[in-house]
């Protein structure tokens, strides 16, 4: 066990932290987007990478985070809001995990997609019938630079957690489950607890990302906060980068965030079509992700 990779990582984080001091608004906003997707894709891969359980519930947790801020942001101190958001996201993940992680393969995929839609519809129903206003304004006194620093801290935390999990018995158990779910219990692994724990841990990070990003929008409604496109984008970023390694998703996040940014600016009306094509090309050409490609090159 070596702590050597921590040195360049610390330097990188320190360098990134100085960005708001000289970057302009657009550059900062793009960097924020990159950090957001880095957190989401890395958190996604923390659970889905080793287990190969493809989750489309990313935006469910992201949206829970955003709505926690929309509801509580003006009433409670900020750290407490984040804490509550994380707790709600974690609790929902535990509940969902305990009831669904027996499902495997395509059933799990469909369930997680359904879950995100269900939560969106529930929130919509509540807003329309109880609060009688579909949207909410998010008034939290925070600058873009402060959002950026929080996101950078969260990204650092995700990597640190992923690194520690990867070295722990918990992470090892998850890899065994991913390799052969029949063998895992026969070597003494309680597969339900392991899967639910990692699913909840990854959900907490997604929820926090949603909470930290919420003030940036000033206005949110269920269609924005629970936009299913986010789940698909996170999935394809993690797949392009390679979900089998901690740094893998990052290799997908950077090119694809930039590409999506470019596509939305240049082809706003054809964005979805082009996105679909990008998905096809990635799954067809790099099934193991960029990280997998480079590893295979190195092995040769």
């Amino acid at each position, binding site marked *: *066990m070596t702590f050597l990779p921590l040195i360049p990582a610390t330097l990188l984080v320190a360098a990134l932290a100085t960005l708001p001091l000289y970057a302009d608004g657009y550059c900062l906003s793009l960097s924020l987007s990159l950090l957001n997707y880095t957190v989401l894709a890395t958190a996604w891969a923390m659970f889905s990478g080793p287990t190969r359980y493809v989750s489309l519930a990313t935006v469910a947790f992201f949206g829970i985070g955003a709505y926690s801020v929309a509801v509580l942001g003006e009433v409670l101190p900020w750290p407490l809001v984040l804490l509550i958001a994380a707790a709600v996201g974690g609790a929902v993940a535990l509940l969902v995990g305990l009831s669904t992680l027996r499902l495997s393969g395509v059933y799990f995929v469909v369930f997680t997609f359904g879950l995100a839609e269900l939560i969106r519809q529930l929130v919509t129903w509540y807003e329309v019938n109880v609060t009688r206003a579909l949207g909410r304004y998010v008034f939290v006194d925070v600058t873009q630079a402060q959002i950026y620093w929080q996101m950078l801290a969260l990204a650092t935390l995700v990597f640190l957690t992923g690194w520690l999990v990867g070295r722990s*018995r918990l992470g*090892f*158990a998850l*890899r*065994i489950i*991913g*390799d*052969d779910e*029949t*063998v*895992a*219990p*026969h*070597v*003494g*692994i*309680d*597969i339900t607890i392991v899967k639910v724990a990692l699913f909840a841990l990854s959900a907490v990070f997604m929820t926090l990302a949603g909470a930290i990003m919420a003030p940036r929008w000033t206005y949110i409604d269920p269609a924005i906060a629970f936009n299913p496109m986010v789940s698909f984008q996170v999935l394809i970023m993690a797949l392009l980068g390679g979900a089998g390694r901690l740094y893998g998703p990052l290799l997908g996040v950077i090119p694809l965030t930039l590409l999506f940014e470019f596509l939305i600016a240049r082809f706003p009306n054809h964005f979805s079509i082009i996105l679909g094509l990008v998905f096809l090309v990635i799954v067809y050409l790099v099934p193991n992700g960029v990280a997998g490609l480079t590893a295979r090159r190195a092995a040769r």
Partner: protein
Amino acid sequence: MTRLLEISGLTRRFGGLVAVDGLSFGVAQGEIVGLLGPNGSGKTTALNLVSGALKPDAGTIMLDGRPIAGLRPDRIARLGLARTFQLVRVLGSMTCAENVVAGLAFRRPVLWGEAAARRAGALLDRVGLGGRGAMPADALTYIDQKRLELARGLALSPRILLLDEWLAGLNPSELQEGIALIRSLRAEGTTIVMVEHVMDAIRSLCDRCVVMNAGALIAEGPPAAVLADPAVISAYLGGDDA
């Protein structure tokens, strides 16, 4: 004196089919018991019931005086029962050493880190895979994957080891190595239940055999006597009425 493993009245149905039908037998400490029977007689189902992969509809299983019938497989594994699989199952994305560490890291007491790596090395030596710890498990030949699976089972320090056709599919020289390996386990006092079709292995390894047909026990005793039993012969080859 109670035996290490005591099975009584074990029953499991799949819809209308009774795969295991009131099976009762025991295994004493240090014994190697062969579980025989024609294809479809319920041997693998019986192993799955004992190891917790399936839950019995009726019957009791006692491991060293503790009831284990219906427990989850991870609980049973931690109580000291290890198994191999009929179709060999190694963890293909991992190295051989990691495959063995998988057997060390979740048992009681837990072995992890440096200590686990050292013990895994010793276990790989034990099954004849010495020095191949860093090799990817899916690059091994069939017999070596079987050895690796055995090392993972031994890693649990089991009180009892279930081998499901561990010797099947080996060529004659590999078979001799395999038999020698199991014999050396017995010399160390390991208690083994083996489902097997290879008669040479059964004759040379087993202290006692239990023969199943259509889910039920039809004969029990020393290998030579059991294999000469008319009921066993007719179960395998078909009797006069067949």
